């Protein structure tokens, strides 16, 4: 039995987090345009507040549904935004790269907004999804996508750095640092994407009897994995300039988005519920 109070709390909370993420994005733009350090700090706090509200919303939905809220388009999109948010908050703090908020805060807002447009009805789980592996599989995907989202934001800065002028240009770290942040974010994402694919394979073995079925979602996860594997080799080998590696980080994230949204819309398969 679903609890209306919890449902209302979740709905109001979701509106609030959207506003917070949006306001955070605006403040990051003000920081970039008007050279106001306080705006960046306020932007960070607003995204952080949005993240806290987001966490509470996910908990409320989980309690209301009586299960992990990670099983349909809305729930996964919401968790996807949450994953990018936590990676963003950690990376900004660790690397003191406030301008990153200009790209990643709007990305969090957009993904959360996409979630908001999905059907938010709480449905019962189909038998195939009633597995302890669901939590491992989807949580690892969230962290992986979060890492790749941050890498995408930093890669955009890398590619645009030469074209940006004035105060904004001064707020972007040098290329070596950007390259390093991209690497750290991609390596986090790559490790968790591998874990996600492996936990998914083990789950598939339990549910269907085979580790790999070449389902479109699996196949596109593999394509994404290959692109980031090439990225890591190119970078470690020092065979390409940071610019080309940054382009690969952007292409990789386009694949991530296609794996999540495009495959669901265009290539139905065993993961059609996700």
């Amino acid at each position, binding site marked *: 039995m679903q609890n209306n109070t919890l449902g209302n709390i979740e709905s109001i909370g979701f509106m609030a987090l959207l506003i917070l993420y949006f306001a955070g994005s605006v403040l990051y733009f003000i920081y970039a345009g008007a050279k106001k350090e306080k705006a960046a700090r306020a932007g960070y706090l607003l995204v952080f507040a949005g993240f806290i509200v987001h966490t509470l919303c996910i908990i409320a939905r989980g309690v209301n549904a009586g299960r992990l809220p990670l099983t349909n388009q809305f729930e996964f999109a919401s968790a996807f935004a949450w994953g990018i948010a936590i990676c963003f908050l950690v990376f900004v703090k660790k690397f003191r790269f406030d301008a990153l908020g200009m790209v990643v805060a709007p990305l969090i807002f957009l993904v959360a907004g996409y979630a908001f447009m999905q059907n938010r009805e709480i449905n019962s789980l189909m038998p195939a999804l009633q597995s302890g592996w669901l939590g491992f599989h989807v949580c690892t995907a969230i962290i992986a996508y979060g890492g790749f989202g941050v890498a995408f934001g930093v890669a955009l800065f890398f590619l645009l750095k030469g074209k940006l002028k004035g105060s904004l240009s001064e707020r972007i770290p040098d290329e070596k640092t950007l390259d*390093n942040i991209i690497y750290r974010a991609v390596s986090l994402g790559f490790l968790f994407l591998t874990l996600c694919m492996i936990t998914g394979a083990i789950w598939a073995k339990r549910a269907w009897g085979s580790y790999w079925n070449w389902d479109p979602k699996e196949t596109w996860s593999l394509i994404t994995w290959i692109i980031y594997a*090439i990225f890591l080799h190119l970078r470690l*080998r020092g065979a390409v300039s940071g610019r080309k590696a940054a382009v690969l980080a952007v292409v990789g994230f386009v694949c991530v988005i296609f794996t999540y949204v495009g495959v669901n819309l265009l290539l139905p398969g065993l993961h059609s519920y996700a």
Partner: protein
Amino acid sequence: MTGPMDGAPDHKAGKGKNRPQGWLRFLKSMQFSFVLLFIIAAACVAGSVIPQGSPEAAYRQLYGDTWAKIIIELNLDHVFTCWWFVLLTALLCVNLILCSVSRFPAVLKAWKASGKKSIGMWGSWITHLGMLLLIISFAAGQYTSREETVYGIAGSTQPLGSTGLSVTIDSFDVSLREDNTVEQYTAGLTVSDASGNSKSGTASVNHPFDAFGYSFYQDSMGWATYVDIYKSGVQVKTDLICAGEYTFPNELPSLVLMFNKFYPDLARNEDGSYYSKTPLPDNPHALYSVYYDGSVLGMGLAAPGTSIDCNEYSFVMRDPCEYTLIVAKHDPLGWLVGVSAFVLLAGLFISFYVRPWEKKRTQNAE
């Protein structure tokens, strides 16, 4: 995938006495691995966009004659099992083997030379080993595993292919929630071998039942019905058929009753189409077609017990019941995939978070 930063201090392939030949150098090179990975990724795109395993006519209808011909010629209708995809994967394995073997002495030397003998030196090497093991164990599993299917209603016994085992479906239960959504499909099974040994248990979704080296999976379900066939009012045959199957009088095989679909709780949409309101058999109807010599004589919906008459013959469908389809898999190398995956993950973790020179490099940048 050999490279200067790839797990060990640079050692140039091809220098010194043991200079490998050009082709060998290319086979173990990172450039070759990039080419392979790029083609494999492109093949994956094709394999996910183009429907796999459809008949040729379906491709003609979807893409036109020219493209359908190209798809068939290039095996793009079964990308993941075609010879060139297998060859690409085999070449990737060769690349991984050669680069791992050629890098081993250098990694070992670097490891011995390092004072603390950190495992971080081995991160990249272990990752590649894990990847290689994963591909090999998965491929080996394709050749050593065996799959059989049985389907039937509760109480039926079927032989399990040519395994010498037989499967009795003791029970089949579809548990529904209050809102009529399916909570679980559970089949009670007894598996027996030729010597009379048997083992009983249940198979439900996500919970296979293991017996005699096989795992039994609750795969899918559907509806079956008994069909009584009468000739001039005298019963001549009784058959049990599942949706999608057909039956006929033995003395007149050209007269066929096809059981197309079952609606447990028949209802009609506004546009006139039929659907089942609930999964419960509250208003059961079967959609059937009758053929004679391949031509359709008629089709319609019939409730259980309704007589479908064709001259002197009549068909009566009765006692609809659910059947279950059980897939049995024997995968002796399944454990190896798990071990390989663990090695791969361990290698990645070591590469990213224990690797000493990468750590130093990133810390300097930070």
